[in-house]
């Protein structure tokens, strides 16, 4: 036996670092793997069981490998707008926006979440790219803007239809009197809360397509919080394996696979992240190229493919229309919810319309695949 489509090694080649919850994961039966430079839980009881549990109840994910950054100082919004295509200066306090760190040529250096915390901006960036992101931000943010890496904070995600009920049972209060209760937060809103004496930065966001929360907490308190959550009957710990299959079903791209520094936001089908005013005014890296692509339409575009049978198409598989290669799979696997394989691919624009029948070559076989809209599994965000 030899894995022939193992995930490429992400992040540093050095010995993986332990997360703040390392012992807790092992005590809960996790199998640990190296990912993004950290030793992380890939699964506990099994990927499919964990995946389905999250869709039906609530799953707790340790995403402490991700980078949590604070950007502050007078003019921080404008400074970020010089690096991102989002309308950060119009982002209200307590609101979260998905955005992209862009290179001069309009390639995606990372995808990230930006939260307006009132007096500062809180960024969550990918684990495997965070050191490059920090270097990039330090280089390009003006001197009067301060960048802090919250490396003494952990990050948990609680995802699934029971997440709201679970957080209510946990009993958190707004940190500021008169601020909205946690249950009043809608998708892409955030606030500061107290769990007893412990401060939690909570946003109603996630990477599964389900309702849920992401919770930033000082590393010294994370084990107590994780334990309090999994002691609730609706909550189980969920590993990276199910995180990947859940995000794939939700049609959400994974940096390093579906997005790279060579991918532009339009081809990546992330044009929604380029705010209207920014399209008109430009002033972000690669603006000219990106606005041009918006006007002309991209030559290739990220699209969803559904396959019959059970044999999965994997990253790197070539997509054909007749004898012509028309695309490449960037993520693929068996969908536990749909019970058939699904994939994301970059397809030539001419064959990317929903319903187009294509073929994916896997191990010398041609698998029939149909272009389908994403998400593959309907989002159930709290709007």
């Amino acid at each position, binding site marked *: 036996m030899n894995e022939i489509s193992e*995930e490429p090694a992400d992040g540093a080649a050095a010995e993986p670092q332990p997360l703040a919850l390392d012992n807790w994961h092992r005590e809960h039966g996790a199998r640990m793997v190296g990912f993004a430079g950290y030793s992380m839980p*890939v699964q506990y009881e099994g990927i499919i069981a964990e995946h389905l549990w999250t869709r039906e109840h609530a799953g707790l994910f340790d995403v402490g490998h991700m980078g949590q950054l604070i950007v502050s100082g007078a003019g921080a919004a404008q400074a970020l707008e010089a690096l991102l295509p989002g309308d950060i200066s119009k982002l209200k306090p307590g609101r979260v926006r998905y955005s992209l760190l862009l290179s001069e040529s309009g390639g995606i250096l990372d995808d990230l979440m930006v939260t307006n915390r009132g007096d500062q901006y809180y960024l969550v960036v990918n684990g495997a790219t965070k050191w490059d992101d920090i270097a990039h931000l330090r280089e390009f943010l003006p001197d009067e803007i301060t960048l802090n890496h919250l490396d003494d904070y952990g990050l948990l995600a609680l995802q699934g239809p029971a997440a709201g009920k679970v957080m209510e049972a946990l009993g958190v209060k707004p940190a500021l009197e008169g601020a909205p209760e946690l249950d009043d937060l809608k998708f892409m809103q955030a606030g500061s809360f107290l769990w007893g004496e412990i401060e939690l930065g909570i946003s109603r966001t996630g990477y599964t397509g389900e309702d849920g929360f992401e919770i930033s907490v000082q590393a010294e308190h994370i084990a107590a919080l994780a334990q309090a959550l999994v002691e609730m009957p609706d909550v189980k710990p969920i590993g990276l*394996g199910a995180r990947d299959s859940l995000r794939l079903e939700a049609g959400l791209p994974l940096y390093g696979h579906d997005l790279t520094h060579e991918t532009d936001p339009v081809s990546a089908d992330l044009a929604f992240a380029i705010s209207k005013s920014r399209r008109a005014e430009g002033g972000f890296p690669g603006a000219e190229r990106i606005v041009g692509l918006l006007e002309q339409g991209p030559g290739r575009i990220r699209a969803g493919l559904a396959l019959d049978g059970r044999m999965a198409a994997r990253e790197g598989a070539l997509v054909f229309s007749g004898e012509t290669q028309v695309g490449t799979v960037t993520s693929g696997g068996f969908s536990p919810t749909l019970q058939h394989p699904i994939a994301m691919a970059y397809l030539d624009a001419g064959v990317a319309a929903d319903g187009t029948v294509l073929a994916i070559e896997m191990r010398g076989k041609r698998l029939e695949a149909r272009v389908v809209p994403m998400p593959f599994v309907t989002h159930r965000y709290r709007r």
Partner: protein
Amino acid sequence: MSRYFTTDHEWVEVSGDAGTVGITDYAQGQLGDITFVELPAPGQAVNKGDSVAVVDSVKAASDVYTPVSGTVSEANSALEEAPELVNAEAESGGWLFRITVSNPGEIDGLMDETAYKAYIAEL
């Protein structure tokens, strides 16, 4: 009947020139939930070490190498509808294929159960 193991975590049970091949319980545990098994066609002649089957898990696809040379005589058709049988019964009902062994001497290079257990204890 005797059962032998490879360092790649396949097992073969041999009785005369009839062999049955599968992956070990250790291997299925490492792979996690198995969603598809690509099996060889009966009649296919194979050489020891050839990749003759593929086990697809949620995470990844893995080659299965035949521990012995010979001719495939049967594939486990139960796995077409129920690939998870490899998780549940890797070393019994989740066998992958049967083979008519052409070179019984190849068995000598494989591990017995005691040696295999010692081998995986070191991993």
